[in-house]
Structures are given as C-alpha cells and as structure tokens.
C-alpha cells in the first residue's frame, strides 16, 4: 500500500506500473450543522474523517457502506467537486493540491465521474450528442461531434438513432450509457462510479456492468466504484474498502474481504444480504437498529453501539487499521484482531 512517492515531473503517465494511480491520505470533510443562528455552539457532521486509501493502476476499488458512511462524499472530494478540509490527493505520483488553473483542468480530464441519477446528470435541454461533445468542445477539440458519435456507438447506442434525442426520450439504462460515454470523452484514467448501476433494473444493470468491464479492459481504466450493493461490488472490484461513519474500518483484496472478513461490521454487512435459497432463509438479523447519526459519533470505535462484541476498551481506545497478515494488504480496524488491545475476546478472534 505504500510506494515511492517521488513526484515525477513528466506530464503524462508513469510513476511506472507500481505507482498507484491514486493515493488518498488523511482525507477529512466536516459539514457544519446549522441548528439556529443564535446557537453559539457549532456542530459538525463528520462525513469523512481521516480516510486513507490507494488505487493501483488498472484496478477497481469498491467502496461499500450504508447511507451516511461517507462513501459518496469521499467520491466528491476525490473528484474535487468540493474542497476537502484536510488531506492529500496524489494522482500518479503528483500532488493534486498544487494544481491550479490549467493544471487543475488537465487533472480533471484524467478523472471523470458517473452519477447515480441518470436523469439528473443529463441536461434536459441538450441532445445526447451535444451533452457528450460539450466537454471536448469547451477544450477546443475540433472533432468533438464526430467523437461523440463514435462514443455513442461504443456504449451500444446507435448514433444515427440516438444522437439527436433528448434525455427524457431514453430509458434509464440508455441514459446511463450516455453518462458513461460522456465520462469517456476525455479518455480519462480514473473513472469514479458513484452508485452508477444502483437505479437500474436488474436485467439492464447486467448490461451496464458488462459494458463497464469491457471498457476497463479496452482503455486501461481504473475505477473507483461506490455502491451499497455487495453483490455488484464483489463482481466488479479487485479491492474493497468498507466505510462506517466516515472512517475506513476494513480494506483489502476482494477475496479476503468476502472470504475472511475481519471486522464485525463487515461480517454483519455480508450476512445481511438476502439469501437466494428458499430452503435456507435468513433466520436472524446480524445487526439491530439503524446506522447511527454521523453528527455525534461515539467515542472510540464508532461501531461499538451496534457491535455484538463491544467491550469497555472499544469505548476508550480507537482501533487503528492493522494489517491482518504480513503485507497481506488486508487491513481492519478492530480490537478483536489485536491481542495487545486488551479486548477479552481478542485472542479467540485471531485469523486462521
């Protein structure tokens, strides 16, 4: 997870294949909560609270978690759609913070985003082709229209049929294809998919997932895939990061996370998925209650309110992300995995 971070001055690519495409360090975003204008005491939603991760080139990092866990805010911070309160973004070895003006524009072209709401992410007054060509045209690319038609063709929409249409004339799946085409218009290196298939019908979702996989292979894309659907994350991701109340509580290669989850929350999340077998229905809910409010997160481990293994130490000490083996890339933040933590069950919970 750590690599040489010497900033390379080369304008295009290459900190080499070993250099992660994106490194995020200690990312923070707190939103003030307005209770009343006369209230002196200000409260904050700890939307993203010290998040670290990296995405290797050509891989997909899936971010999962429930509503309010900060996964979408993380995506927007990485996309620089809102300023972070603290933290560092390193894109292919270069610090993004230093980017200003033209450099920022350049950076943005490398990083595109597909949003959940296929309708809200298309301007209702522009035709499909205009929408796709808009970005390149702003940058003065002459063949923008021609390129837009090629992209439409690539995402499976016949340009002669669709180029002149308006978003409301398309189905949800077709609109999401348009959004993907728009994201590809700059030949980006990182694509952030923020619940990009969540609103689609199952039969259409599979089409779009296939398309995403093909495009990734074809264009050497790197994906940051944000979703609440564990099946889809499992299917698409190489690495998975689980967030809870603004913090990363577990991350690692997808087989490790799904095969040997080390955090009680990850385990609960995985077993909350409905069984597909009527003979073996889910008998008990793994967790009680709703995800708590991120305004006043509990002290220590934020999951302790809902955790079946919670102990006094969980309230007093915040568990750090620890490697679950030697350089296994599998990290989890739970006292159960740390024999030195003082948690009475810790020794029983050691990894196999």
């Amino acid at each position: 997870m750590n690599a040489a971070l010497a900033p390379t001055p080369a304008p295009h690519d290459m900190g080499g294949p070993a250099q992660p495409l994106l490194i995020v360090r200690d990312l923070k975003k707190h939103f003030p909560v307005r209770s009343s204008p006369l209230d002196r005491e200000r409260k904050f939603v700890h939307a993203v609270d010290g998040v670290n991760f990296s995405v290797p080139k050509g891989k997909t990092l899936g971010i999962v978690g429930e509503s309010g866990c900060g996964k979408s805010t993380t995506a927007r911070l990485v996309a620089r759609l809102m300023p972070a309160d603290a933290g560092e973004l390193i894109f292919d070895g270069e610090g993004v913070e230093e980017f200003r003006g033209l450099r920022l524009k350049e950076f943005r072209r490398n990083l595109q985003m597909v949003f959940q709401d296929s309708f809200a992410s298309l301007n209702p007054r522009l035709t499909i082709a205009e929408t796709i060509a808009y970005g390149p045209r702003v940058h003065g690319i002459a063949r923008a229209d021609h390129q837009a038609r090629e992209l439409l063709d690539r995402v499976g929409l016949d340009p002669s049929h669709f180029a002149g249409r308006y978003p409301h004339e398309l189905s949800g799946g077709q609109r999401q294809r348009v959004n993907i085409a728009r994201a590809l218009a700059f030949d980006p290196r990182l694509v952030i998919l923020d619940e990009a298939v969540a609103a689609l019908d199952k039969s259409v979702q599979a089409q779009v997932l296939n398309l995403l996989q093909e495009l990734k292979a074809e264009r050497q894309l790197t994906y940051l895939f944000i979703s609440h659907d564990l099946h889809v994350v499992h299917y698409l991701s190489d690495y998975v990061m689980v967030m809870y109340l603004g913090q990363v509580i577990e991350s690692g290669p997808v087989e490790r996370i799904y095969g040997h989850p080390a955090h009680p929350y990850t385990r609960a999340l995985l077993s909350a998925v409905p069984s597909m077998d009527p003979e073996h229905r889910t008998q008990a809910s793994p967790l009680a209650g709703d995800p708590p409010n991120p305004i006043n997160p509990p002290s220590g481990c934020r999951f302790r309110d809902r955790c079946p293994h919670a102990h006094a130490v969980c309230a007093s000490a915040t568990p750090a992300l620890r490697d679950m083996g030697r350089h296994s890339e599998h990290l989890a933040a739970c006292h159960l995995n740390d024999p030195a933590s003082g948690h009475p069950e810790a020794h029983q919970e050691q990894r196999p």
Partner: protein
Amino acid sequence: MSAPLVSIQDLTVQFHGARRASALNQVSLELGQGEVLGLLGESGSGKSVTLRTLLRLHPERHTRTAGRIRVDGQDVLALRGRELDRYRGGTVSMVFQEPGLAFDPVYTIGQQISEAVRVHEGVDQATAAARALAMLERVQIPQARRRFDAYPHELSGGMRQRAMIALALACKPKLLLADEPTTALDATVQIQILLLLRELQRETGMSVIFVTHDIGAAVEVADRIAVMYAGRIVEQGPVGQLVHQPCHPYTRGLLAATVGHEHRGRPLEAIPGSPPDLAALPPGCSFAPRCSHASERCHRDIPPLEQQGARTLACWHPVRLLGEAA
C-alpha cells in the same frame, strides 16, 4: 382449498393521459388465506399498478379498469363511499416504499396510529392509544413509549418503516399490500424489516402481497412468486420451483442477471435491450423482442397463461419442459 381471499380475474388497466398506456393486461391472480405472494418485476412491469388497483388508488378520471377483483367476498371495483373507506385500512392496508412520505409530518406517530384505530373501530381515545402503543411494541420499536410521541422526521428510516407497518396492521387487515417496503433502506435494516414482516405474518395469519424488484427480498418472505413483465404475469409458482427451475426465459434471464459471487471474472448473462413502451406494446409476447428463444409465433401471438402443475406459465417455448421432473 377454501375460497381464496383475493381473486383477480382478467384485470386490465389503462391510463389516459397525453398518451394511452396499457399498464395491466388480463392479469389473473389468486391468493389464499395466510399466503404470501411475491410480485416480482422491473419498473413498468405493472406490479405497483396491481397493488394500487387493489386499493383503488388510481384517479378514476384517467384510468380505465376492466375485469374483476374480489377480496374477502367483496367486489372491490364496485365499492363506493363508506364501504370503500371500510375496505381500505380495514380489510386491506398498505405499506409504502417511502414511509417518510406516507406519514403526516405535523402529527406524532402515536396520534396517527390511534386515529386510524379510532376511525375504523369506533373505540374511544384511550383504547385507541393503548392499541397504538401495543402495535409499536409489536413491531419491535425500542422505547416504544417515547417513540409514540415522536414526529415522523425524528425517527430513522428503519424506525419509520416499522411505524408504517404498525399503522398498516393496527386495524387487523386480512390482506397486507407491501409496495417495495425495503427498497429505500440500507442492507442491514432491510433484513430486519423482512424478518419482521415474516414474523408478523406468521403471528396474525394475514395474507400478504409483497411487491419488489429484488428477487432476494421476495425469496426471504414469499411462499409463491408471480413474475410480471410489461403488464402481464409471465410465470407464477412456488418460490422454490421458480428460483431453482425457472421456465420463462425472462425469469431465467432475471435470475442469471442477478449478480452473485460465482460470476466474478466472467461477463454476466444480460438480457439485451430494454422493456417495451407500454403505449406501444408489440403484438405478440411482450418479451419476444428481447428473447433469444423467440420464434415467429412469439412475435405474432400472445401466449396464454396456462396452469402446469403448481405453476402457471405464459410462454410458447419454455426453457425447461415441466414433465421432466416427474
């Protein structure tokens, strides 16, 4: 089997707006006492329209309804005035997808549930309040007494959905209609609500129609699943049979397109294309344009819904012959 609680025959619903859309075409359904039916389908399949028609929620000015609906011996489409009011909430009640929108924000949860009890059963305020509180406890809302006096916005999504279920069950309906009740919820909360619904159904013996687009959720609660596509039921059967041996190409496609861990590294078997426009349905089987088994006949004639053992099926070329299991 005794007379079914719900019997829908040849129900056809059309909407007249700027365009004419056929939302339901010749839908027939039966539901026994204490049975749980999962109505599975994607957007525009007609699953929600079926529920809303059962409660007569569509504006009559723009809706043309044909066919027959009988629930608990009453002809639902003929109900008027007070009878309709008693039917809604008394015989049948509904749980919505967005509990935040189904509650009135200016009254407390407790007030709204007691009001429903008072209106339907004509009991006094104190009895109604006691019943409401008991209902809140029954749906496992922690600290029910405190939540009784809470306003809807003060509850979390999962608590609101529990309160919604309490409201729906307060008048002991014989039939509960659940319209995607868990879709808007987080996974860990969804499973709690599904388990709660299953438990309440077992305790009360009511019948449930559970509408969802999520096969997993349907499998968790339903005895029987009816798959809808473009306003028609295409396949119906006991949940085990349907999941393990789907016969209709659409059901099969839907199951194949539901991502599981075994799919990693392979392309998914997606159903190509998108669902048809309800204002311009194809002349034959609505699924034919997307179906890999479609023949000329499929494009020409609508396949009838035929009973085959425990299952009903509307397909000219079923994926698997039903006789082979026997």
